[in-house]
């Protein structure tokens, strides 16, 4: 069936066919491990444990039909659909409140369903730098992580193999942290516009190098190489871009059970600080209890703290795992910084939907007043002609003229800046606003520190300098006022050795609970300025090892 209207959304409030789809969503008896969330974190944990253990994964969203990806791509291109419509995000299921200094567009920033937010993601996968793990000591900002780069290093290498990363293996990027082996696939060739940027950067003494992509530059792991659809964000129809359905499928092949449209509303516990069951609701209106020996919460950086807060009990009146009082606090994202304009020559943009060159040169200059940041060189600057064609009051020759005028000469740079952790930037429960299951919705208070805002100004200076050297007419600058989040939810169940200062310990196990782990960027004590998912994946693999060791010990 073709057509953007032919795809199902699978939200329980979406009506039509949502009830009684004949799928068995009853709990699995004798489960060893229950994972909440089928994004990359949950999927990697499930895949790693499924061979040896009885694993069940519960996800609030649906299983998406892979045959519908092109119809979703049509939604990405057609102006009628908003970004959240591509993967059916929104409605009562995904309701939330904003109460902070800056509005947070939560439903643009996540996908619920098997595969999680990687269905929508861009797929840039860098390791954090060594100093990111010691930000307190080295830069005087935030706490140090209770683990070091060296603790994660082997897991980073494994995560790169699991996701399938095409990268420069550190050869052309002297600023990348040390690595022991090459990336699994060679990096994508630089784009034509990269070659223009490279010249300008060279005359300014600025280095430009490849970027690691979780995207196949050659056939990998049974998946296609990139074929250039150019709609990576929000959907890759070819499967060349990694998404977590890869590991969900692998976990299922090994015997794991994955239950979709199973929203976990609370975690139950006994008197010995053990989680006993995940209570979940299914589309038929039933409520079920999934019991297990170990629980891994991998519901993303907003729903994870929300689930612990929703699980408050007499024994834990402030929420489960919240002895520190920090559940939900220190909500961080990476801040987008950018500038762009036009040249008087063709720049060949929008052939593909990812970028191929970046600059990490300034990253480790970070200190108390300057946040770490990285710079990116866009391959999709300016409008895409097909999208332009669908809105406007013209057609025929005048439309073609407008497209030819509008497309062809754009260039742009982006970048990400770290924000410092602040307790009052946080996720709490809304007081009188509930979701489709009657649970209080997340309330987001997002604020950004001055160091981050000052750093954005600094990045803008560099971006404009490069663009001017290139001969561009600079037409826009996304500075401190125009910045927005990069859709990376971090910090809300931070990791610390000290149970008073953090929610989970260095193994990502909740301080207050014997058998409950968190696999998510919510455990990041500070965020660095590198996209988080490779670190999420590395931590998830490490969590799986710890769960495995503890299950073996009991």
């Amino acid at each position, binding site marked *: 069936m*073709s*057509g953007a209207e032919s795809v199902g959304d699978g939200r329980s409030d979406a009506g039509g066919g949502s009830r009684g789809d004949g799928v068995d969503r009853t709990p699995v008896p004798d489960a060893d491990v229950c994972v909440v969330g089928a994004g990359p974190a949950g999927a990697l944990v499930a895949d790693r444990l499924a061979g040896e253990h009885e694993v069940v994964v519960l996800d609030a969203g649906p299983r998406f039909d892979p045959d519908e990806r092109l119809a979703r791509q049509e939604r990405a291109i057609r102006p009628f659909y908003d970004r959240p419509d591509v993967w059916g995000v929104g409605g009562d299921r995904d309701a939330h409140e904003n109460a902070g200094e800056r509005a947070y567009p939560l439903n643009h920033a996540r996908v619920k369903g098997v595969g999680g937010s990687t269905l929508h993601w861009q797929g840039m996968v860098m390791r954090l730098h060594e100093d990111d793990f010691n930000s307190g000591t080295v830069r005087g900002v935030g706490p140090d992580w209770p683990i070091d780069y060296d603790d994660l290093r082997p897991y980073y290498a494994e995560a790169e193999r699991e996701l399938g990363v095409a990268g420069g293996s550190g050869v052309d990027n002297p600023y990348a942290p040390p690595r022991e082996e090459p990336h699994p696939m060679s990096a994508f060739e630089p784009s034509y516009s990269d070659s223009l940027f490279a010249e300008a950067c060279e005359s300014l003494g600025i280095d430009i190098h490849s970027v690691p992509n979780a995207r196949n530059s050659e056939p990998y792991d049974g998946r296609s190489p990139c074929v250039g659809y150019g709609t990576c964000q929000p959907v890759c129809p*070819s499967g060349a871009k990694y998404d977590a359905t890869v590991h969900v499928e692998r976990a299922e092949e090994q015997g794991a059970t994955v239950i979709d449209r199973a929203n976990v509303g609370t975690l139950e516990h006994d008197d010995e600080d053990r989680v006993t069951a995940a209570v979940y609701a299914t589309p038929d209106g039933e409520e079920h209890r999934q019991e297990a020996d170990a629980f891994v919460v991998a519901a993303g950086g907003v729903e994870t703290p929300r689930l612990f807060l929703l699980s408050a009990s007499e024994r834990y009146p402030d929420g489960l795992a919240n002895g520190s009082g920090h559940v939900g606090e220190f909500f961080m994202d990476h801040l987008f910084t950018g500038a762009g304009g036009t040249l008087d*020559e063709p720049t060949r943009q929008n052939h*593909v939907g990812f970028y191929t060159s970046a600059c990490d040169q300034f990253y480790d200059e970070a200190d108390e007043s300057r946040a770490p940041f990285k710079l990116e060189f866009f391959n999709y600057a300016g409008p895409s002609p097909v999208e332009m064609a669908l809105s406007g*009051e013209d*057609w025929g*020759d005048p439309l073609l003229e407008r*497209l030819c005028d509008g497309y062809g000469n754009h260039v742009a740079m982006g970048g990400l800046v770290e924000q410092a952790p602040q307790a009052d930037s946080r996720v709490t429960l809304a007081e009188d606003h509930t979701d489709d299951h009657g649970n209080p919705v997340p309330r987001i208070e997002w604020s950004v520190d001055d160091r981050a805002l000052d750093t954005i100004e600094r990045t803008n200076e560099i971006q404009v300098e490069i663009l001017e050297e290139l001969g561009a007419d600079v037409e826009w600058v996304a500075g401190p006022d125009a910045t927005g989040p990069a859709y990376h939810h971090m910090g809300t169940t931070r990791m610390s050795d000290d149970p008073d200062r953090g929610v989970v310990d260095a193994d990502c196990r909740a301080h207050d609970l014997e058998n409950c782990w968190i696999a998510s960027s919510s455990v990041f004590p500070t965020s660095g300025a590198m996209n988080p998912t490779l670190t999420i994946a590395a931590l998830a693999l490490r969590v799986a090892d710890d769960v495995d060791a503890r299950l073996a010990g009991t």
Partner: protein
Amino acid sequence: MELTRRDAAAALAAVGATGGVALGVRRAGDGSASGADGAVGDGESGEELPDDGAVREAMAAIATTVYPEAVSGVDAFVDGFLDGRLDGSAHGEGIRAAVAELESTARSWYDAPVAELSVADRDELLRGLGADTAEENPHGTTAERVRYYVVNELLLALYASPTGGELVGIENPQGYAGGAESYARGPP
């Protein structure tokens, strides 16, 4: 620039349909209801819905208005594209219903079917309906549905195809799986 079967196949691939495969399901069972004037009853309101042939004819006629003059081969391109779209899906039926409204407006304003109007009259018909200023909406007003199912349907097909892209200077437009090499090449 000549639109080819390859363009139609590429445009179809971009929206997730495959031409030919659809033939088997094309309004199966409705054949006998086909009227001699190329219309089938929709069984409910008593209004006439155009059959596939009439939809194809009207869409090709509209295409000559909304496509730039520089393209040729429009009939075969639109026909090839609709092979995959008129597949019994909700989308295909949306196209049919929007074309029915266009046709009935054409008959009441010009006393002629869309295919027999001049290019200028077709342009006037679309603008008179408000399809130029309307934002596309598959559930909206007539103007919004005509924009979604007719005008934008045809523009999407063209500009997501390699030939349509080349008109604008991009041989690998969004939606077309044109490979992972063109982005690295310089201008021709």
